[in-house]
């Protein structure tokens, strides 16, 4: 149950309370801190803290020209800059009444394919797979699975190359603009990637079959899944924000459907469904559960073949969901590359006017919501950014409450490690280190 929790009952001298407090793991941009409160040997409560970098940027953007928003928001996340750029340009284009051409639309989907490939492959093989194989890290895994990692790195490189060709440079895409792109690549600049992507599609299918054969712990999250849903395509940049309970909202209605609540134990806000006061789950598993019939053919057949059990509510199988999305991304990328035509013009014209607009796009980790207001000079007066990791935090905490209870033992280090493994199912923006989660057991 989400929302404020009652204070623990006073110690009556008969029950034994232990409060496990976690000091924040001090990394530069990522912190994960977990508190497990135990009473009489049982888990009474769990509190999770995840640092939220986007909050800095909401204030930083005010007063900036709207044309700078894609470049500034791209700096929020080093692994998914495209997601922040896509949500920002779509929100600003909604505000200013800009409709991009079909060619620009396809090029944006191609850019997102590159980011999904890069992000998903990194997480699947270098961060998450080691958990299923009993390794402490991807480094240990390299000893016996070097070929798998080499293949994964080659897949990741394809994502990098796509971002470099379309984004203008690999380290930080600079080609995305409000209204389109600053420049569209020529056919020969982009179609030389086709042989790599043909190889990559087959390799992604094989790699996904490999992870689907892992042994998965049993855990039924009973989630309310949320993702974009589009009538014609697997969602990336457009669609209605849809829930597995059957509700659908436009991005303009986001604040009517979802709210962020302050919780006493954390500076991070908890995202909840307004209608129920309950948490919800965004990400690849949500997307697949809500959009599986709109996958490209090979990905769709693979999702049938792998016998995941749809709809799937086991977060451990998120690694398989990511694999299926990598296959889809390769398929769709090949389709766009093969039929590519540069957009002319590369950017749609527009004029500054006081306006407000919102958009949601599907970052690798889930739905990413942006809202902006601009003045008649084209300056940002308001910005709101709700990333997928923030939206999942309440759900992760709820899940950890159950998971910690099921794996709790006297071996605190082992319990902590199992909690870290569990959080990695969500691919939050702090899971890059082997031991990102500082779990402290306070036994009173």
């Amino acid at each position, binding site marked *: 149950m989400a929302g404020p929790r009652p204070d623990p009952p006073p110690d009556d001298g008969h029950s034994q309370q232990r409060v496990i407090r976690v000091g924040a793991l001090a990394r*530069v941009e*990522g912190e994960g801190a977990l508190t497990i409160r135990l009473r009489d040997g049982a888990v009474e409560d769990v509190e999770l803290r995840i640092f939220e970098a986007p909050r800095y940027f909401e204030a930083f953007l005010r007063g900036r020209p709207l044309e700078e928003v894609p470049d500034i928001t791209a*700096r929020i996340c080093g692994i998914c800059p495209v997601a922040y750029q896509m949500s920002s340009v779509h929100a600003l284009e909604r505000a200013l009444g800009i409709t991009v051409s079909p060619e620009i639309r396809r090029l944006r989907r191609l850019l997102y394919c590159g980011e999904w490939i890069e992000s998903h492959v990194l997480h699947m093989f270098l961060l998450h797979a080691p958990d299923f194989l009993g390794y402490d*890290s991807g480094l240990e895994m390299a000893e016996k699975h070097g070929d798998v*990692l080499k293949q994964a790195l080659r897949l990741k490189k394809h994502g*990098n190359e796509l971002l470099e060709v379309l984004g203008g440079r690999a380290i*930080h895409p600079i080609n995305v603009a409000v209204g389109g792109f600053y420049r569209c690549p020529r056919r020969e600049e982009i179609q030389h990637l086709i042989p790599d992507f043909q190889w990559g599609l087959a390799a992604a299918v094989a790699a996904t079959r490999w992870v689907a054969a892992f042994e998965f712990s049993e855990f039924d999250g009973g989630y309310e899944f949320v993702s974009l849903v589009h009538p014609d395509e697997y969602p990336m940049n457009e669609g209605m924000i849809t829930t597995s309970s059957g509700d659908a909202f436009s991005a303009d209605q986001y604040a009517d459907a979802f709210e962020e609540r302050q919780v006493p134990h954390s500076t991070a806000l908890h995202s909840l469904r307004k209608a129920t006061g309950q948490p919800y789950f965004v990400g690849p598993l949500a997307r697949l559960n809500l959009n599986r019939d709109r996958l490209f053919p090979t990905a769709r057949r693979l999702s049938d073949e792998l016998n995941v059990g749809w709809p799937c509510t086991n977060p451990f199988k998120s690694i398989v969901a990511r694999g299926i999305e990598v296959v889809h991304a390769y398929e769709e990328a090949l389709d766009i590359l093969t039929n590519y035509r540069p957009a002319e013009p590369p950017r749609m014209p527009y004029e500054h006017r006081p306006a407000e607009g919102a958009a949601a796009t599907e970052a690798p980790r889930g739905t990413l919501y942006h809202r902006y207001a601009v003045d008649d000079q084209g300056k940002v007066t308001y910005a709101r950014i709700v990333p997928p990791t923030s939206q999942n935090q309440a759900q992760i905490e709820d899940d950890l409450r159950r998971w910690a209870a099921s794996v709790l033992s006297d071996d605190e280090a082992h319990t902590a490690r199992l909690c870290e493994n569990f959080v990695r199912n969500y691919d939050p923006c702090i899971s890059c280190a082997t031991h990102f989660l500082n779990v402290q057991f306070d036994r009173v």
Partner: protein
Amino acid sequence: MAVGFGSHHADDQIGWRVAQELARRMPDIAVRVASKPLDILHWLSGISRFLICDGCRGSGLPGTVRRWTWPAISIRQFTWNGTHDWGIVETLSLADRLGCLPREVLLWTVETRYVSPSGPMSQEVEAAIPVVLGAMKAELANPTVDR
């Protein structure tokens, strides 16, 4: 090849600034900038000498420059700036295990002070740029350098 790691954020720009200056002054050298250490694994083929510059924490006062020759064990004690990816030490270790690490890997670290998002570089770290640059140029003047 020389690589500068970093980001747009305050002192974390140090690797990029050094690499950009190096590329300007030594145009015959393969110089790249990166934000994610794992990206270097795509560039190592055929490379025999690999020079790196990045910011870190734990090596002394802000602006302190230190030089390491891989596989210096003591390098692992420091905290590397940047998230969402493997760190430099883990990445070099992975390259080693996958059999693609260059014969010689040299790393220059600069102790950082500020890492606030999109913030300015501190004076101490800015002052370290010519120090690192001079050291890397001296190494690259070695006739075994990659062209």
